[in-house]
Every structure is written in structure tokens, then in C-alpha cells.
């Protein structure tokens, strides 16, 4: 309880500018009101409205316009969409077009023939359960042309067969010793089909009953749109992203439901929450989904389970690699940018990409680069360039530009790309996604024509015209000039 003197002095305290000027001028100031008094304001006359001030008309409202010569059509007066509509529209993925014709000659991929080399140059449909799984891991992108055709189908191009061979190599190693971990970076021009090749890899892995973990978009992890928290008991400070990890767990669960349901938990993981009796991996994942604050320990425990001997190989994939080869948008407590490799999920992926941690049951680590949504990452660019040069013209390897800033952590992760040698020996290599050959272009254009999306006679002249227009068979451009009616 303050003393009355104290209160009185407080009420007489003047905070306004008048307190600082001299006494004489203070006495000249007309209304002398105490600072905390509200009476003057309350009894003051209401401020008179200035004449001629009319609120501007609402959007879309018609007003009388008496000016001459104002007949031009008014600007866009459409109503705004309801909240949430825009994002739903933007993220919507349509995989079917009822107007497109059914292609009678289209065969599905199946488990036995998924990795066969006979598929090369053919268009193959994706079976329904694979489509569901791919949708669950968000492998389909909005910019791809799935919405034009009756059902999803892909062209098994040369690079796809190359990837299929890798899957085969992992499944039955030649020399019969331990399982292989193969690491590949997909590179290529814009719209050359890198994300689609990643999708084909995931589809083949689903067909061969692998465990698939896909980070659909690296940008979403590093752009600071989800919550983050420091990970206790980490030597260099690391950060977990609980909500994102919980979402990822639910995607993993949805995509690999059959395996996770059937497999019991064998280790005794240290978890903050109790598991039910006789737990399966599904229960473990559900625990992380229901309690996002425990999602990171659950993810670690799940990974521990998946790498137990006797389990299927793992396909670990990411799209948009250059987003994780730089600082993230997150800030640390002392307002310094957090490097992307200090986020636990990214760290987990990068450890496997660099080969620091192998996959005990074998598997493939795939990372697709992007050309249209890629922040500058000189280390990644240089490593990819060197690896491509070693494949195509080994006598002319580019040199590091010393005037560029090197991100040493990114360089350390990708240093295997700089090792001379061919793909199998190195572990980490690039798959250069180039243009289609004319045979491949012809087969996909015949598929377009059979679907009714391309109204032309597909003959040699037509194919080579479009192939040339598409920049020597860049598949995105080929789709654009032949199906999308983009002039």
C-alpha cells in the first residue's frame, strides 16, 4: 500500500513536454491540466466533422459516375475467396481427367516387372495402391501434368532404368556380402524430369516393398514456417521441428502401413511416453503423431527399429536439395542464422547422404535438385558440375572459383562427389537427367495421342519437330509444346 504523499506526488507529476520547458512559458500555456486527468477530454466538444469528407465507396459497389468518357471496363471487381480456399486451390492435386480417353495398350507396373530392363522406352501405368502411397508422401507436384490424363502413367526412360538397376543392385548384391547403401543426386536442366524421376524411384521402391521415407519439399523444412525448439543434450546446438516431424511420421505411417502394422517393436526405446502392450511400429508412429512434442524421440526410435537386421531396404529421398545446403531461415537465441544441417531432420538426411551413417539393410538415398526454386548454393553447384564433368569429359574438370563463399559444411557433405571414379565405387554420384531420345519422345507422344490430348498424327516428322522445339527432348518442354497448348 503506497503512502498518500507518494500518490499525491504521482498525481502531480507531469510527463508532458511542458515539464521540460521553463516556468514562464509553462504558466503561459492556457489549459493547465493534470496528466492523469480525463475530465478535459470528456467534456470537450466532439470534433466537428470536416465537410466534404465522405468515406470511399466499398469495393465492388457502384457509384454514380457522371464524368464523360469513363466507359473503360472497371478493374477486377470479383469477390475475394473465403479463407483457406486459396491454399486448398493451390495445393490441390488432381490425378484424373474423366474426359481423357482410356489407353487400351497401357500396362501397369507390377512387383515382378518393375525393375525389368524391358520397360525401357515404354509408358507404364502406376497401380492404384502405389498412387495412394505416392500421394501420401506428397510425391506428386502441382506443376506436373497428371491432371490431363485418365490415370497416372510414366515413361520409363533411360535414367529410370538406371535407377531400377540401382534398386536391383541393392536387393541382391553381386558378391553376396553386406547390403549396399547407394547415394545419388539427380541433376539436370529445368523441366527435365528430376522430380518425376524421384517419383518413379519411390514408385519402384513401393512396388518392391521397401520402406519409403520422403521429405517432399526441402524448402518447407528450412523456411521457418513451422515451430522449432532446441534439442536438449546435443553437443553442437540442434533444433527439432515437432509439428513437421509429426506430419512426416503420419506420412510414413500412411505410405508404409502394411509393413509397420506387421512389425513388432523389438528394442526398448527411451520414450517420454509409454507404449501399449505388444507394440507394433504402427503404435510407435501413432504415439509420435498424437504427441508432437515427443515426435523427434519417436522418429529416432522408429529409425532404430527400421534398421534392425532382417527388415526391408530403405528409400530415403528429398526434393529441392539446395535449400538444405545453406543457412536456414530460423534464428537461434542470440539471433544468428541456424545452419540447415543443425535441424535434426535435415541432419538425419545429410548424415545418410554423406555416407557418415550407412543403411544397415541397404537402401538408396536420393536427392533431387531443382532449377526453378533453388537458392544459390555454390558448394552444391560446384560439386554437381564436377561430378557431371567426370562422367562426360574427365579431362576438363571445372575448378573452384576462389571469389565465391564456400559453405564448408555443405562441401563436407558432398565431398564424395569430387572423388574421381565411376558410380559404383564412389557411393555418392549424380544421375544427369538429360533429354529424351527420339524413340522415347515418340512413345510418350503416342500415349498423349491415344489419350486424346494431342490431336495430331504422330509420325517421324511430327516427333522430330516437337523434339527439336522442346530443346532436344526436354520432357517438360515436350509436354508444353504438344499437350499443354502453350503457344
Amino acid at each position, binding site marked *: 500500500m503506497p503512502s498518500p504523499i507518494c500518490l499525491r506526488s504521482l498525481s502531480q507529476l507531469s510527463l508532458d513536454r511542458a515539464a521540460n520547458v521553463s516556468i514562464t512559458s509553462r504558466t503561459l500555456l492556457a489549459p493547465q491540466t493534470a496528466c492523469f486527468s480525463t475530465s478535459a477530454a470528456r467534456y470537450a466538444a466532439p470534433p466537428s466533422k470536416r465537410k466534404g469528407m465522405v468515406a470511399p465507396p466499398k469495393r465492388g459497389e457502384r457509384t454514380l459516375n457522371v464524368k464523360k468518357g469513363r466507359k473503360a471496363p472497371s478493374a477486377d*471487381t470479383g469477390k475475394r*475467396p473465403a479463407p483457406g480456399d486459396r491454399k486448398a486451390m493451390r495445393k490441390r492435386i488432381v490425378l484424373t*481427367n474423366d474426359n*481423357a480417353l482410356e489407353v487400351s495398350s497401357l500396362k501397369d507396373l507390377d512387383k515382378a516387372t518393375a525393375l525389368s530392363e524391358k520397360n525401357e522406352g515404354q509408358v507404364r501405368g502406376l497401380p492404384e495402391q502405389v498412387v495412394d502411397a505416392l500421394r501420401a508422401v506428397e510425391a506428386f507436384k502441382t506443376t506436373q501434368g497428371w491432371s490431363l490424363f485418365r490415370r497416372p502413367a510414366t515413361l520409363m526412360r533411360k535414367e529410370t532404368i538406371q535407377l531400377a538397376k540401382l534398386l536391383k543392385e541393392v536387393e541382391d548384391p553381386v558378391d553376396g556380402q553386406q547390403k549396399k547403401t547407394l547415394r545419388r543426386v539427380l541433376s539436370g536442366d529445368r523441366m527435365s524430369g528430376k522430380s518425376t524421376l524421384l517419383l518413379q524411384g519411390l514408385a519402384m521402391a513401393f512396388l518392391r516393398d521397401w520402406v519409403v521415407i520422403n521429405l517432399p519439399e526441402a524448402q518447407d523444412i528450412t523456411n521457418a514456417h513451422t515451430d522449432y525448439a532446441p534439442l536438449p543434450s546435443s553437443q553442437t546446438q540442434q533444433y527439432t521441428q515437432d509439428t513437421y516431424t509429426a506430419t512426416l511420421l503420419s506420412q510414413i505411417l500412411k505410405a508404409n502401413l502394411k509393413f509397420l502394422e506387421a512389425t513388432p517393436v523389438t528394442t526398448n526405446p527411451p520414450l517420454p511416453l509409454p507404449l501399449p502392450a505388444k507394440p507394433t511400429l504402427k503404435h510407435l508412429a501413432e504415439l509420435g503423431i498424437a504427441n508432437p512434442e515427443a515426435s523427434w524421440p519417436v522418429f529416432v526410435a522408429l529409425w532404430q527399429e527400421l534398421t534392425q537386421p532382417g527388415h526391408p531396404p530403405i528409400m530415403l529421398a528429398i526434393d529441392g536439395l539446395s535449400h538444405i545446403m545453406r543457412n536456414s531461415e530460423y534464428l537461434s537465441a542470440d539471433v544468428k542464422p541456424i545452419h540447415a544441417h543443425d535441424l535434426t531432420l535435415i541432419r538425419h538426411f545429410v548424415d545418410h547422404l554423406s555416407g557418415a551413417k550407412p543403411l544397415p539393410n541397404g537402401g538408396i538415398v536420393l536427392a533431387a535438385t531443382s532449377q526453378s526454386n533453388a537458392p544459390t548454393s555454390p558448394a552444391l553447384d560446384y560439386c554437381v558440375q564436377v561430378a557431371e564433368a567426370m562422367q562426360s569429359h574427365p579431362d576438363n574438370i571445372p575448378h573452384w572459383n576462389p571469389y565465391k563463399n564456400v559453405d564448408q559444411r555443405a562441401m563436407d557433405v558432398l565431398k564424395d562427389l569430387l572423388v574421381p571414379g565411376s558410380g559404383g565405387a564412389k557411393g555418392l554420384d549424380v544421375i544427369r537427367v538429360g533429354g529424351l531420345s527420339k524413340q522415347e519422345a515418340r512413345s510418350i507422344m503416342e500415349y498423349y495421342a491415344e489419350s486424346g490430348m494431342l*490431336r495430331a*498424327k504422330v509420325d517421324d516428322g511430327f516427333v522430330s519437330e516437337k523434339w527439336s522445339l522442346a530443346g532436344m527432348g526436354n520432357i517438360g518442354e515436350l509436354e508444353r509444346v504438344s499437350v499443354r497448348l502453350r*503457344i
Partner: protein
Amino acid sequence: MPPRLNLLTSTRSIPYRPKVQAQWLARPTTRAAPWQSRAYSDSKDPPSADRSKRIESQPLPHISEEAAKIAEITGTQGPDVNKGTPVEEVVKGDKEAEKKLPKVMQDALKSKANSPPKGSRSYSTTTTPIGGNGGGNGGGLDMGLVGFNPPFTTPETPGLKFGMPTLPLPKDGHVKHRYDPVVDQVTNLLMRHGKKSIAQRDMALILQHLRTSPIPTINPSRPLLPGAPPPSHLPLNPILYLTLAIDSVAPLMRIRSQKGAAGGGVALQIPVPLGQRQRRRAAVQWILSAASKRRNRGSGKGSFAQRVAEELVSVVEGRSSVWDRRNGVHKLGVSARANVVLPRKR
């Protein structure tokens, strides 16, 4: 054998324009068979003929028989009496005779298909395109059909480095006319601030939306152009879809207000016919302004394109307000048609 009666002069009073059918129309392929029936069931004389013995009291024989008899007398070849008389042909064009026909024949004449159905206008509110862009399917709407016949190849001519071009030259052979004219025009009308590439992207999105939207249901009171393909064909041919929507609501004329011509400070409204490109331009402007008033659903680049595409679909389905606008212009044009000043004939 010459014709039975020289009737052609009277039946050809209706002007007949032997114009080549430029457009495919859904018409029955069977033509009306020539009149084969006889007015009576028997080949013998009519029963009234032998009632009287006197020649002058006997009824006149049938018109064909009379002609045959006269021909027999004069020694020329008359009509074949075994074939009966086409009464309709005889009285065609003769109003007095038509009034006196039996009721069955009068009804048949009235219900002829060439008379317009009841309640329809005496003037047309649509036009058919003349000549134009059709390559291989004879003008009119471009159905987008693919010709699978090998093009006509000219024989080898010695001395040419690359050989003669195959004929006919492809439609898109000229660099300035390589795209569909409608698509080109709509793209240019979509363009704002001279940004053509954005307009082209919007055009591609519009066509893609038309291609993926469900099959339209045609409103019978708002019919599309005659000769339009069935609606199930439209989504697979989005350029035809676009063309059909635009051409179906395109106005035939605009109303020009001539100041001071009517007197008393009132502008005289004169309907002025529009050319095909002008008609399309008017229709596209209407469609674009209606689309900009629609509710915006998405965000980002494709939202206007999507609204335009939805408006096009609603035009084809007859729901759009653009139809009322077109009908209003036509109504005004009809009521002001007296103001049209035609060049005086000499």
C-alpha cells in the same frame, strides 16, 4: 422420254441458289421421294365416266389422261398415264388451286417441314461463317480432325535441292498465321499492358480448364451454332469449345448512335453489321467483363484464367448473362432496322 407435263416453269418460281453446302449440318440423308401415289386405286377409268352415254355430259378425264389424248391426236408423245398425276406439282405456286385441294393434301402442304415452326422469328439471329479457316473439312468450325491420308506429293523434279513442297500447304505454314485465329485473337484480347507471354499462359490455362471440365449440358433454349458437334466432343477439343462459345454469343450488329439525325436532340440508332472478327471481339469483351465480376476462388497467377474458363463453360451451357446481352442488342437492332439507310438502287 420427255416429261409428262411441262411443269418446271411453274415450279421453279422460287429462287434457287445452287450454293455449295459449306458446312456440315445434321440433316437426314434420305431425300423426299417423288410422288408415287395415284389419286385412285384402279387403273381403269373412274366410275363416273360410264354413267352417261353422251360425250358432252361425261366428266372430263383426268388431267394426265387428257394430255395423253391430246398428244395422241396431235401425234406427239404425251405423259405416261400408267404413272398417275402428281397433283401437288401441278398446283404448286397456284394459290387458288391450292385452296381447292382436298383437306388431306392441304394439311400435308401445311405441315411441310420447310415452313418455320410456330413462334419462331421470321429473321435469323445467327450467321454461318463463310469460307475461312477450314483446312480439309470444308470451312465452318474446325473440328480438329486429323487427316490420315498421305498428302498429295508432287513428282520428283530434277534440279531441286529440297524437292517440291507437298500440297496442300499446311495450315500453320505461314509464320504469322501459324496459330488458330480464334486463339490468337483471344490471346491478344486477354493481354494487359502489352504482356503477351502472360496472356499466352492464361490462354493455355483456359484451354486446360476447358479440357478437364465435365461435359457441358446444352440448354435447348439457348442453342449453339448450327452444325456444332455433340457436347461430348467438346472437352477433347478445347479450341473448338472456345470457338463455339464465342461464335454462339457473338452479336450480328452493333448499334451506332447518329447524333442529330433523329431531330429533337435524340440520337438516331442505326444498326451496323459486324464482320466475323468484330463479332468475335465483341463477344470476347463481354465474356471477359462477365468473368472479371465472378467470384475469385484461387490465388496467384491462374485465377483470372480460371474465371474466364468458367464463364466460357457457362456460355455453352446457356447460363451466362452474355446471352441476354446479345439478345438485347439484337432486339434493339430489330426495332431500329427502319433507320438503316440502304444505298439507292438505280
